[in-house]
């Protein structure tokens, strides 16, 4: 076993353990942190596959931006440990067969797929290639997505505004 493969397997194990832990933890913050561990392990996996750019972006976007918002919201709402209800107990009976079905399908697909290990272009090539795709070939969907995000931001602003129409003082909604 080569060292790369050992590191790859270790990171994969960490990612899976983290993913399982997301469900097993009762407290939302602990689940969120397990999810962050999964993200960082995935970034490590990208690193072993020599995709440094994707690895860095994976951490910056998912661990550094999206999950920060998750943790932030959980902290703001002061959410406590989850309590099982009748519905969530029922989910166990529906969930287990579904999980088994998903596993079987995944296994089948992986078995059927032919995995090819092609040489990746250099990091600069990857960066350039991704930029070319984003800003040339797919510039219209890309810009459309940014408009979509802008609309979402405006929607959030409208929702965060006070009832009497007075704008919030900090310009940041009610974060403080």
């Amino acid at each position, binding site marked *: 076993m*080569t*060292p*790369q493969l050992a*590191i790859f397997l270790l990171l994969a194990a960490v990612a899976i353990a983290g993913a399982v832990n997301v469900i097993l933890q009762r407290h939302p*913050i602990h689940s969120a*942190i397990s999810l*962050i561990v999964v993200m*960082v392990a995935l*970034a490590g996996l990208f*690193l072993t596959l*020599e995709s*440094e*750019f994707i*690895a*860095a*972006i994976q*951490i*910056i976007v998912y*661990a*550094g*931006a999206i999950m*920060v918002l998750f*943790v*932030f919201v959980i*902290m*703001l709402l002061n959410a406590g440990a989850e309590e099982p209800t009748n519905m969530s107990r029922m989910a166990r009976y529906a969930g287990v067969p579904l999980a088994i079905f998903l596993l079987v399908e995944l296994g089948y697909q992986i078995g059927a797929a032919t995995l090819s290990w092609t040489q990746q272009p*250099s*990091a*600069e090539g990857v*960066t350039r290639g991704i930029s070319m795709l984003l800003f040339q070939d797919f510039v219209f969907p890309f810009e459309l997505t940014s408009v979509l995000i802008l609309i979402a931001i405006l929607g959030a602003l409208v929702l965060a505004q006070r009832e009497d129409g007075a704008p919030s*003082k*900090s*310009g*940041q909604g009610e*974060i*403080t």
Partner: protein
Amino acid sequence: MTETIAQPSFLLVSLVKVVVLLFLVLTAVAYLVWFERKVAAHLQGRWGPYRTGPHGLLQPLADGLKFLLKEDVTPSGADRFLFVVAPFLTMTLAISSIALIPFGPASIHIFGEVTPLVVANVNVGLLILFAITSVGVYGVALSGWSSNSKYSLLGALRSSAQMISYEISLTLSIVGVLLLAGTFNLSELITRQSGHTWGIVPKWNLLSPTLPQILGFFCYFVSAVAETNRAPFDLAEAESELVAGYHTEYSSFKFAMFYLAEYASMITVACLSTILFLGGWLSPFPQTPGLDWTRYLPSALLAIAGLALIIHGVRYLTLFGKFVLPLLGIALCALAFLCSRPNVIFYIQGPFWFLAKVFIVLFVYVWVRWTLPRFRYDQLMRFGWKFLFPLALFNVVLTSLAVVMHK
């Protein structure tokens, strides 16, 4: 990377570099605290640490010992696991980012391996650095949340909101430099700034002939101060409102870890501003025969400092100081002599200029902290979102235009 991981000698050399760098960084952090206290005191017409060793030179040691020996208190109702993890996370991230910083152009020989003066020369070094910084928010957020204290929670919320807000202008301020250089590699970023306009003005990104990145540098510096949670952006630690912010409940060595992390990230940010805007390890003087003497500047500076220390030392108040300070002076003079040797002088140039620039940036940092009053929270948010963010964006547009026009 595939080939290099497999070589045991590469691992060994990297390990040696990591250990040496870790030792240097922790020492630098300890004495940066001393330096800040000294500068702050002199700015306010005080003496600063003076009793622990000559000129308080042993103060970092005493502080460290004090932190180690204090009782470690965990507040009741705290989330024990996260309460312990948060300071570790903060310090690990703050220190590990320094592994990406290149300190000089020369290669050194360890165990027959030729290796550059950087622990990890990554192709997307800048992005990895930002990745590490962006994860740093968790240390703040989790420490505040797990403490089970309203002051900590409010401090954590404030400071993570601030860090997220200023991360945008921090990242955008660098896009200008990236447009000029066209690479994420930190070593290459420096080498592309070599050369001089009209033979005298260095082509550093701050003074780039395409478009001087003055706006970018301003945005970067201000956002970096905010990102490291230092005054005038230290609202998380506004003691009149929040006791001490997110680390209110921390004591003993866990508190020391937050403290060390703050100064370690200061060093990283100063290194990064040197690399991105101030030409990194490049000498400000053109490398022409007429200016050959500038290579002896490091030796001259060290020798002057050593001599001054000897003269001052023999007249020092305490016996201990009379003994230690001249000894330090003699060591500096010996170092100066060593640096002027023909086979050493080449190696010393890069690190000298790099560290000199970092030192100047750090001094400005300390200077700003003890000069400007603290922002109010709404002012801080308004400044970040309504002034710095558009300014950084404007800089991106302007630089893109300049780059296109220059082609």
